Each structure stands twice: as structure tokens, then as C-alpha cells.
């Protein structure tokens, strides 16, 4: 079989697969956006449609009724996400480098130590007690940042990328007298940039989307993360309906499903945009030239 025909076949199959997969992924996202812009009346009568039969901004109006709150939440979440991601990526990649070094005498033990926590954890209550009563971090953004900072999964993932860096590069640098710091920052880090970018984006998403840790530890409404604020707004409405609290319902438009979808758009929008930027890093690491014998 001629190589070029085969290559073209593969190319064709690839394109078709990705277009299909892409559509399957795109369609639900479009529905989410569409529903968020549909009037509740239309949803009641026609169900969920891909193209809104009756366009409406009621869900967004409700969400942004108190724009100060949402903007605060965006700000808070951005700060937590950026701080958390930068620190997390830095510390995780350093740890990944150390555990990748066979010259490190405690390599196996430390690796095991990290992995063990992936399987075993003390549970919610002991962590809660530690954070609130011993570290005094209740209602502090640092509780969120620190708790979610180190994930053994990411350590091992980055370790695999780092192991892909040719040992010879590192050794020749050592022979030149480079410290481990220099090797890590100047050689390993740039070469594994695509792996680091992958871990960075998933870490960022983890911070950005968190609402559970927020629910447990944050009591000050001004410090609510975006997702937590949105879940609170949603939950308020579910609850009012269930409790039949008429006094608090009348005078309030209650777009229910469209509201849920709108909170989705508001929360995820920034992440989706961020991904487009991070894409640039999914490239080959900068080559450091060839190895001299």
C-alpha cells in the first residue's frame, strides 16, 4: 500500500472522527447556552429547544440583580485560582522532579508517601477540625488554596513527563557543575512545558469550579467563590419553592431551568476562554540543542 494513500486514509478517518466527537461535545454546550436564553414560559410549553422559541434574559437579570456580589465573586475566585494554580504547579512540578530522580535516595519512599494519600484519607471531619481549630483558617481564602494544592495524581503525571527528558541532558549539565535547581528550572521545566500546561489547566479548573470547600469553610458572603455564590442563588429558589414561602416568591420571577443553565454559562465561560489561550503551550518543549559526546 502506497504510504501516501494510507496517510490520506488515516487523515480522512481522523477528520471524520474528530468532527463527530467535536459535534457530540459541542451540541450539549450549545443547548446549555440556548436554554439559558430561553424564557421559562417557553420551556414550560415547548420543553428544551436548541433554538429558543422565546428569547429572554430573565435568568441573567436575576443572576446579575446584585452585580456587586457577582463581580466580587469573580474577583475572589480569580485570585484564589491564580494563586492556587501558580503555587500548585510550582510545588507539584518540583516534587515531581525530585521523585523522578533515581539519584534521590528517598525516591521510592517519598513516592509511596505521596501515593498513599491518594488512597487513604482521614475524612472530612478531621480535616475540618484541623483547618478550623488548629490552623485557624475558617473563613480564610487560604483554606481553599492550601487544601486543594497538592494532588498526588498530578505529581505522578508530571513525573512521567519529566522522566521523558533524556537522562543524558541532565547528566551533562551535572558534569558542567549545575545545581539541581538550575537543572530543574532551566532544563526540565521548559522541556516539559506541555505536560505542565496540562496540569496547570486542570488545577485551575479545579480551583475555579470549587464550591464544596467554599461551602464548608467560608462564612463571609463577600468571599464566596463564583460557583458557590451561584449554587446558593440556585438553591435559594429550589428551597423557596419547596417550602412554599409565598411571601418571598411573589414579585420574584423564578426562571428555574434557564437559571441553572445561566449559572453554568457564567461560571464556565471564563474557563472555556482560558483553555483557548493555554492551547499555545501544547507544543513541543523548547529543544536545548543536541548532546555533545
Amino acid at each position: 500500500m502506497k504510504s501516501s494513500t494510507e496517510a490520506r486514509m488515516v487523515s480522512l478517518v481522523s477528520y471524520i472522527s474528530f468532527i463527530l466527537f467535536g459535534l457530540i461535545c459541542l451540541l450539549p454546550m450549545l443547548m446549555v447556552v440556548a436554554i439559558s436564553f430561553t424564557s421559562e414560559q417557553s420551556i414550560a410549553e415547548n420543553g428544551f429547544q436548541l433554538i429558543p422559541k422565546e428569547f429572554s434574559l430573565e435568568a441573567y437579570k436575576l443572576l446579575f440583580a446584585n452585580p456587586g456580589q457577582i463581580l466580587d465573586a469573580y474577583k475572589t475566585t480569580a485570585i484564589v485560582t491564580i494563586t492556587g494554580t501558580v503555587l500548585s504547579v510550582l510545588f507539584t512540578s518540583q516534587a515531581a522532579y525530585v521523585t523522578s530522580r533515581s539519584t534521590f535516595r528517598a525516591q521510592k519512599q517519598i513516592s509511596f508517601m505521596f501515593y498513599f494519600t491518594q488512597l487513604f484519607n482521614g475524612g472530612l471531619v478531621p480535616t475540618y477540625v484541623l483547618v478550623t481549630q488548629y490552623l485557624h483558617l475558617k473563613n480564610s481564602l487560604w483554606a481553599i488554596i492550601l487544601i486543594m494544592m497538592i494532588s498526588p495524581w498530578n505529581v505522578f503525571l508530571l513525573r512521567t513527563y519529566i522522566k521523558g527528558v533524556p537522562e543524558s541532558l541532565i547528566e551533562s549539565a551535572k558534569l558542567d557543575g549545575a545545581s539541581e535547581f538550575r537543572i530543574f528550572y532551566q532544563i526540565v521545566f521548559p522541556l516539559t512545558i506541555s505536560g505542565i500546561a496540562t496540569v496547570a489547566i486542570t488545577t485551575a479548573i479545579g480551583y475555579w469550579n470549587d464550591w464544596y470547600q467554599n461551602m464548608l469553610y467560608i462564612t463571609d458572603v463577600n468571599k464566596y467563590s463564583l460557583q458557590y455564590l451561584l449554587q446558593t442563588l440556585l438553591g435559594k429558589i429550589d428551597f423557596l419553592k419547596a417550602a412554599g414561602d409565598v411571601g418571598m416568591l411573589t414579585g420574584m420571577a423564578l426562571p428555574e431551568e434557564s437559571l441553572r443553565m445561566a449559572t453554568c454559562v457564567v461560571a464556565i465561560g471564563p474557563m472555556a476562554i482560558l483553555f483557548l489561550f493555554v492551547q499555545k503551550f501544547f507544543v513541543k518543549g523548547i529543544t536545548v540543542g543536541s548532546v555533545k559526546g
Partner: protein
Amino acid sequence: MKKTKRLLAMLMAAAMAIGMLAGCGGKNEEDEAITLTWYIMGDTTLSDNNEVFQKASDMVYENLGYRLRIMPIDAASYNDKMKMIIAGGEEWDICWTSNWCNNYANNVTNGAFLQLDDLLDEVPTLRDSIDEKIWEGVKADGGIYGIPVQQIMARNSAISMPLEFWEKYNDTLVDVKSYQDMDAFMKKFGADYPNVARVTFNWQNLMYDQNIEPIVKPAAIDLEGPTDEIKVYNMYETEAFKNLVLLRREWTKNGYTKKGTDGNATSANRKPEQEPWVIDCYKPGYEVMREASVKYPVKVFTISDNYLTNDGIQATIHSINYASKHPVEALKFLEFANTSPEFVNLLVYGIEGKHYNKIDDVTVKRVDNPGYQNSDWCIANVFNTYVMEGQPADAHSQTKAMNDNAKTSRILGFNLDREPIKIQIANCASVINEYNAQLEEGLVEDTEAFLDEMNAKLKTAGVDEIVAEVQRQIDEWLATK
């Protein structure tokens, strides 16, 4: 390598030991006045929370000399957050609890709350303002562990339907006194809207109509009967249940209701014909609340008498922390909260002129998008609050009458200790979860065989042990009366 290994092992052990050994660190604070911390349900996103809470605290200080620190928790996270606060040993004095959120009975079993029986003598006004029956109903593990909030407690079975159907099919609804009587309605309705409706049971509300009071599924007793002899049985084995599900199957078979299911999803069911009627519980002001929820006018009528049960009484309670440093003060505060109309109205409606306006002496109307508001049932004695525009001026006395005249459940005050049968309960819960919904929606072709299958599975799951144990506990409880 060996040295490092040992060093690391020691490090790990030390870390864990430190974690474990760290006992409770208490903090001593100088208080000029006693501060009570009170956790309630509330919307934390409201802009005027602080202003209103400060006023409330001042009110308490004027009257009792304590400071009040109100900690609102959003309804959606109340259960999880409060559980952490309690389990994590944080300092708090009073919290809101109930049988449907931040479960009262569980908290009592786990030792979270303070027993109040003896302390009630310190608050005679409060003690006497609550009916003896209600104190019975709020007992758990044989003691009183919380102050129930006075509000609608009587429960009943009622049918609620879109007004348009009530008018259209009125002739079929004239003699409806029970779930089964809806057959005539379903025939006519089904002819006009075949294969559309979703109709289920709702045992929490249906039990008053069917005279079956579940204790812990599948164990139940008759709602009405002799008070000195109470027989426990498997509710799914009764003739009553069988006839109910067979009737329900007829409706599906004849196309009156839809032949498929969407599980518990209800979001896309908005048109009246998708939910032609539901079993609900009637209370004064029901129509307005339901309409706000479903967005069409409704008609409601009861199909049973009013009953006072443990559930109705335990729907909203305030309890005191077992480890509270100021239990007597906390109780005195609860007495104040439940006897002062000014206090409760402040925390329900906010500040007059700013958050609401008075229409007359007893009626108020909230402003649009008020900076503060809260539900009345989670604060304190509802009968002391204003009524809202649209509700009758005597709504409270109507409600009180409903409570006073309600029949009492035969097991008022009885709390089941699930511990000896918890495995069987879990096993039965699984069986019920699997079979029940299909029966309730009439989806199974050979319903009778399916029901027999379910009961057979319940037998292997241990229903007989459950029934025996519940019977034993009830007999024991009866003997103490």
C-alpha cells in the same frame, strides 16, 4: 537507604501521632456580656443582614442582658454545614433542626443536643405556652431535646390540581373522598390527554387518606385504631396497598397516564396536563404558595381529617448544644424569642418602612426585592408574626384551631431506635427503591406478580425482623404510658 527509610517511617508516625494526640484546645475569652451563638437558615446574600441582626442583638440585650450572634446558613448548604459544625466540635449555643434537615433524631442519638426536660422549669412561660401534646411529639430517645417552633403542625391528605381541570371535570370530582375516588376523573381526563400525565403516590401526605402510618419503611401501623394495642405490619403486604397499585396500573394500561418514566426528574413537566393532580398537605394559604410554584391557578380540597403526628411537630425545632457554655441563658433566649412578637417580626420581615410596609395592624406587605427577609417557620413562634397581604387576618387562629382540633397519632412521642435493625432497614430500602417507583407509576404489566416478588425480596431483606423489633419497641413504649 535503610537510614532514610527509618527516618521517613518515624516522620510519618510522628505526623500521625501529633494529629491524633492533639486534644481539644479550648480558648478562654473574656466576655463582658454573655454572647449566644445561634445558627439559623437564612439567605446570606441579602444586603441588610448585618443591620437586622444587630438590631435583634440589641433587642435581646435590652431584655435579657445577653448578646446575640446570629449565624445564617443558606438553605441549600444548611444540612452539610451544620453537620460539620456539630461534628467538628465548634462552639455554638443554639441551632435550628428538624426531621427533614439537620436531622433532629440523629443528632440526639449522636449526642449533639442538650436534654431540656429538667431545665424547662427555668422557663415557665415558654413551657406553659406549648401544648402537652406537642411536648410529647418532640421527644426523642425518651427526652425533650429541643423547643418546637409553633406553626402549622396538623397534617392531612389533600388533592391539589390546576383550576382549569377542576372546572372542566367538576362532575367527576364531586364525591371524591379518597385517592381511589379519582378514578372517574382519570377516565375523563385520560380521554382528552392520553399517555401524558405523571401521577404518583406521596406516602408522606397520602398516609392520612389511606390510614397507613409508616414508622420505618416497610414497617407501618394503622393511623387510627385502639390506643392500647398497636399492631405493626409490612405495609406492602396489605390489601389496601395491593388495591392501590392495581388501580394505578389500570390507569396506565388504559392510557390515562404515561407509559414510561423519567425517574425522579420533574423539571420538564410544566404543563398542567403533565401533572393533573398531586397529593399534598393543606394548610391555610396553600393556594397562593402552590401557584407561585407551578405558575397556574390551583384548586385544593382535603380528603382526610387533620392529624397531629411526630413528623408534623418535629418539622422545625431549635436545639441547644450539648456542650454549650450557657445552656440556661440559651433557653431563656428561646423563651424570649418565642414570646416576643417584636423580635420574631424583626427577623422575619426586617425593618418597617425599609423592608416592608404595614397595611393594617396585623397585615404587612414586603417591598420588592427587600434587603432582608426570612421564612417565619425557622425563626420562632409563627403565631406572633404579622400575616402577609392576601392571607386572611385570622390565619393564625385558623391554624391554631387546626392544630388543636386535630386527631392525634397513636404513637405521638415514640421514637424508633434503628440501631438493632439498621442492616435490615438498609436492605429493605434497596428493595423498595428498586420496586416501588415502578408500582407507583403503574408501569408493570403483571403488577400483582411484581408486588409478590417485591414482598418475597423484602422477606430475604429481613422485613420480619424489622416488624418484630418495631413491635417490641412499641409494646415497651406503650407499657410505660
